[in-house]
């Protein structure tokens, strides 16, 4: 797949947005360098999916701007934006039984006009996307009959068929088993090496630590902190933002952070100890 790597990235400048009167994303600013792999983490409702929608032009910021490959996303024609940015959404429900191949060919929409039929080059792109995501064997199946994990890989294939320069993923591995999960992220890393800019929302903090160059930690619609996984995913930051106790350790094999959950019996003593360490006036 061809891909122009240079000078492509995403940048948010003081973006504020809300669905109703209250903003749910407040003054968010960060830059994803071309060819970067950025993980967005944060608790439920902290605004991660909203950020993905802002970056893909589905919603427009109240204030601030989203820049894609140097241009203000709000000023780009929709099709042009879709040729630059592709999205793997958190969930896809499909009312009609398209075949997997048709579904992946939908990724060619921004490259084709009107009624046109897909040409050989479109089919070649779709086939490559199917191959890379390991879904070529599913090509004739109906998407409504796939398992959650198979469907998610097909949706990734569709996004790749868009030949984007920036790929946004909203918890792409929620339905994947552990093997397909790492395979998907391995593939994303491979694509990143070829010049693709990747921004992924993740709930699995260990995967985030393993694959991302840098992490943006969101809390209540704001950037709580950003930096390398080791800088961001500290015990102090995580317990404060997620409001629970975790066990942070080092993975000796990968040399990355491991963040493990704790049950109530083990959380309580830690919470008490943490409480005791805080300066008195904060209590």
């Amino acid at each position: 797949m061809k891909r122009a790597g240079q000078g492509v990235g995403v940048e948010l400048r003081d973006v504020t947005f809300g669905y109703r009167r209250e903003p749910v994303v407040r003054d968010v600013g960060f830059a994803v360098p071309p060819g970067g792999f950025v993980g967005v983490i944060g608790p439920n409702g902290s605004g991660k999916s909203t950020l993905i929608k802002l970056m893909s032009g589905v919603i427009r910021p109240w204030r601030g701007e989203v820049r894609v490959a140097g241009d203000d996303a709000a000023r780009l024609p929709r099709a042009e934006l879709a040729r630059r940015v592709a999205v793997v959404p958190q969930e896809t429900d499909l009312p009609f039984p398209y075949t997997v191949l048709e579904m992946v060919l939908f990724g060619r929409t921004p490259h084709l006009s009107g009624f046109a039929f897909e040409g050989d080059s479109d089919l070649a792109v779709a086939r490559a996307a199917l191959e890379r995501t390991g879904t070529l064997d599913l090509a004739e199946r109906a998407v409504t009959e796939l398992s959650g994990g198979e469907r998610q890989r097909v949706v990734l294939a569709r996004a790749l068929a868009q030949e984007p320069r920036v790929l946004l993923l909203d918890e792409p591995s929620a339905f994947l088993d552990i093997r397909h999960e790492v395979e998907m992220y391995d593939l994303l890393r491979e694509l990143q090496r070829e010049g693709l800019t990747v921004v992924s929302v993740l709930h699995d903090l260990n995967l985030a630590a393993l694959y991302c160059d840098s992490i943006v930690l969101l809390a209540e619609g704001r950037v709580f902190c950003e930096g390398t996984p080791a800088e961001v995913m500290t015990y102090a930051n995580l317990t404060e933002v997620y409001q629970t106790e975790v066990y942070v350790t080092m993975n000796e094999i990968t040399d990355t952070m491991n963040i493990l959950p704790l049950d109530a019996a083990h959380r309580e003593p830690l919470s008490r100890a943490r409480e005791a360490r805080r300066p008195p006036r904060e209590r």
Partner: protein
Amino acid sequence: MPSRAIAFEAAHLTRRRFRAVIAALVLGVVAVALLCVAVGPVRIDLAAALFGFGDASAIDSVILFRTRLPRVLLANCVGAALAMTGAVLQALLRNPLAEPHILGVSGGAAFGGVLTLFLAAGAPVPSYLLTPFGAFAGALAAMLVVYRLGTVNGRLQPYTFLLAGVVCNAFTGALIMAVNAVADLFQTHGILFWLMGSLATTSYPLVLASAFFVALGGVLVARHARALNALTLGEDNATQLGVDVSAVRRLCFVVCSLLVGASVAVSGMIGFVGLIVPHVTRLLLGSDHRLLLPASALVGGMFLSVADTVARSLSSTSELPVGVITALTGGPFFVYLLRRQSSRGLW
């Protein structure tokens, strides 16, 4: 691997398959039309009738060209319009239960037409020239109201949308009764006659006008067939694929109103064609709207010509309204779809 390549061909819509299917369906339409014009109280010799075209003394020809053919042609136009509207609405609402009748659009068109008949009494222009505009305006108004009620924060809520349609249907039904109540007896008769509708016509200009509207609407929506495909994935996904969602949606709603208005104006309320036809077509030919829209139009034409032929042949003394036939087949079908859909947990 050649075997893989063949399977790849079959798994998406190629230009070749598109042409083959459309050609087959056009042949089907012609065959069904020939069958339908052959059926009737008087047996006619088709070959002789075709041969005697234009000869006023050839009685078979007169029956064929003056009464049966325009009726079958009109049934094809109306069937095509309703089926295409159904297919478009189902894509927009992402719900195979959407249909102009169920969504209250036909009801709006009927009320628009009735109101025109009532107000235009004594107007210098004959009412049959005015009712199409009234029906179109009514359909558009109903569509807009239902659309407004069915969208929250600019996002379409399919379930609310369907409920809004049901309410709109009941509301326009009540309005029609109210107009009927204040109209005088002569007008009431005209209104009822118009509402019942019938595909019986001897007017080629009417057939031509209907064909024009269907063709116009068909071309306008077919140009957005690819966008409709993307829209079935949801509005966010469609936007992310580069589709200008609100523009496509707006155009489709106007075209649907036009098609429904035109068909209600010529033939009254005919329900369920827009439900059954796209559904069956989708089952047989797949969900790609580039094929689904024209194919639904052709299948809709066949379906309505057959339904109309059945309606006029069931009883030798009087005709059943064709809407009775479509509702009798479509009602159970709707219930079947509804049960199947809720068992899959889509709602």
